[in-house]
């Protein structure tokens, strides 16, 4: 990481790719974790495009592999991270919270958003760009 001379930087992180196919989410996770460990702030992590697939609680990777979703959820819990999933991108790809599942008649128990993530609009991405000192995009 760039030497920031002891300054605390407020970062926003954007994740544009899904888990496992692409390295982007892993790298974004490592970046976010490192930034927090060094005392920087993460204003928000925003998941867009296939990045919304990081937010499903239904992934069950082999036990000897990393669990990308769980990594994010645990990091969010530890640091009270604000992790936002774009609603339009999520609806295209079948990521639903309880309210959205109900609204679209998908039945009880079909909500699959993982702990620590919340579904909201693209305005949250723009706001992150405005509020953060640096916005970092991870994707293809």
């Amino acid at each position, binding site marked *: 990481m760039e030497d920031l001379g002891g300054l605390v930087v407020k970062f926003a992180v954007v994740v544009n790719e899904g888990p496992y196919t692409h390295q982007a989410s892993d790298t974004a996770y490592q970046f976010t974790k490192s930034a927090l460990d060094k005392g920087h702030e993460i204003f928000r992590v925003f998941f867009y*495009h296939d990045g919304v697939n990081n937010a499903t609680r239904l992934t069950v990777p082999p036990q000897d592999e990393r669990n990308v979703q769980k990594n994010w959820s645990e990091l969010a819990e530890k640091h009270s991270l604000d992790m936002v999933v774009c609603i*339009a*991108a999520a609806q295209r790809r079948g990521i639903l919270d309880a309210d959205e599942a109900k609204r679209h008649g998908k039945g009880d128990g079909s909500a699959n958003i993982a702990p620590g993530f919340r579904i909201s609009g693209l305005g949250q991405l*723009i*706001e992150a*760009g405005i509020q953060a000192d640096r*916005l970092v995009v991870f994707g293809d």
Partner: protein
Amino acid sequence: MSDSKRFLYVNRKAPHGTVYALESLEVVLIGAAFEQDVSLAFLDDGVFQLVKRQVTTGIGVKNFAPTYRALGDYDVKKLFVERESLEERGLTEDDLMEVTHENDDEEDVSSIEIVDRARMAEIMAAQDVVLSF
């Protein structure tokens, strides 16, 4: 506006084949409501997004190309297209659709500016927020 930042949306992918172009455009339209200083860059295969006379009926996906022409109504007035990316793909400015906005004298003027790679680098360096799609 004191908290206004310079936002650049960098479009690098062809309009179809992947969803990046469509979902990038959705960010631009939502972002327009935040009254920031917005520019769009088109480079690499992203220059194909502005090619005129796109027809998508054969591939069964939505043709969102007309949306670019409405960007002026959203106060998005700066579309920078990289000259080298056009040339590398056998395209010229004449292959691009017309995208216009109304200037202060209420005349329709082109929103598209063809810039070379060095100028594009300068444009990127001058931004506060660069969202790359």
